[in-house]
């Protein structure tokens, strides 16, 4: 090896070190996956409604006003915890919340909503996770904000909590503009 090349390992080392420090110091969520549906149109799907005999057709909905889509199930404890915040949101004007009951027992879900209250404009049934997969859902709960033109603008992975409730509301206002 020539004399000059002997310094190359040191140079490479500092370069890699810099990258590692950067990775360590930025705010990362190693276990969270960013949604690839942001700024895309709502997926096309049809679903049965939980509480009535209607069939929900996605192309007909998601127009004219901001919509929130919340994936939940009775077997998911954080979904239970966030329910109170969903109810709070549902009292707000100018938005609809659609619930998607993911891989659940419809009877249990109906009972659950009766006991806790129903914040949803409509509740759809996703027996086999197909709707969830179409939305890129990988864990419960997940909540999406869709603007009045039917474009998905934001996804929250995890429950709405005291900590992020205000942030979530602000996001809604931001998207509405």
């Amino acid at each position, binding site marked *: 090896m020539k004399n000059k090349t002997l310094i190359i390992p040191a140079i490479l080392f500092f370069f890699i070190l810099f990258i590692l420090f950067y990775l360590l110091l930025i705010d990362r969520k190693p276990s969270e996956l960013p949604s690839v549906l942001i700024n895309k149109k709502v997926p096309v799907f049809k679903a049965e409604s939980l509480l009535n005999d209607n069939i929900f057709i996605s192309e007909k909905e998601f127009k004219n006003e901001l919509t929130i889509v919340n994936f939940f199930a009775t077997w998911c404890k954080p979904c239970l915890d966030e329910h109170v915040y969903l109810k709070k949101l549902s009292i707000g004007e100018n938005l609809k919340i659609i619930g998607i009951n993911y891989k659940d027992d419809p009877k249990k879900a109906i009972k659950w909503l009766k006991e806790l209250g129903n914040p949803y404009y409509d509740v759809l049934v996703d027996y086999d996770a*197909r709707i969830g997969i179409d939305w890129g859902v990988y*864990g419960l709960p997940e909540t999406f904000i869709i603007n009045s033109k039917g474009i998905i603008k934001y996804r929250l*992975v995890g429950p709405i909590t005291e900590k992020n409730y205000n942030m979530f509301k602000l996001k809604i206002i931001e998207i509405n503009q």
Partner: protein
Amino acid sequence: MMKKYFFSLIVIIILSQFFLLTPHAVEPDEVLENSKLELRARNISKNVRCLVCQNQSIDDSSADLAKDLRVLIRSKVKNGESDQEIYQFLIDRYGDFVLLKPLLKFNTLILWFMPFIFLIIGIFIIYQHHKKSN
């Protein structure tokens, strides 16, 4: 509260690990009758990442989401969709992350070409040595 979600997620992850300790995930009732199609489905599954596990493919994991995706892939294979179409379907919903073999794209050029560049540099060094030794 956030802690509880992550707790839920971590519980899922940990439980998936224990399901990793339970046998390999494909169940008899999932297996397609046509063994060629089944083999295709297995090979595709081996390249699809289990999103609620650590570094496992859906072929290896017994998590619910893994099973749902396996069933989905098999029905698509039966329907005559190509491997490429099936991968694209998953990427459209979950991003490039869902594939264990990184796609050759602009942002993975370095990943795929560096090993061979390393090799070429190495061969050059060996050649230089050999030349100078004579």
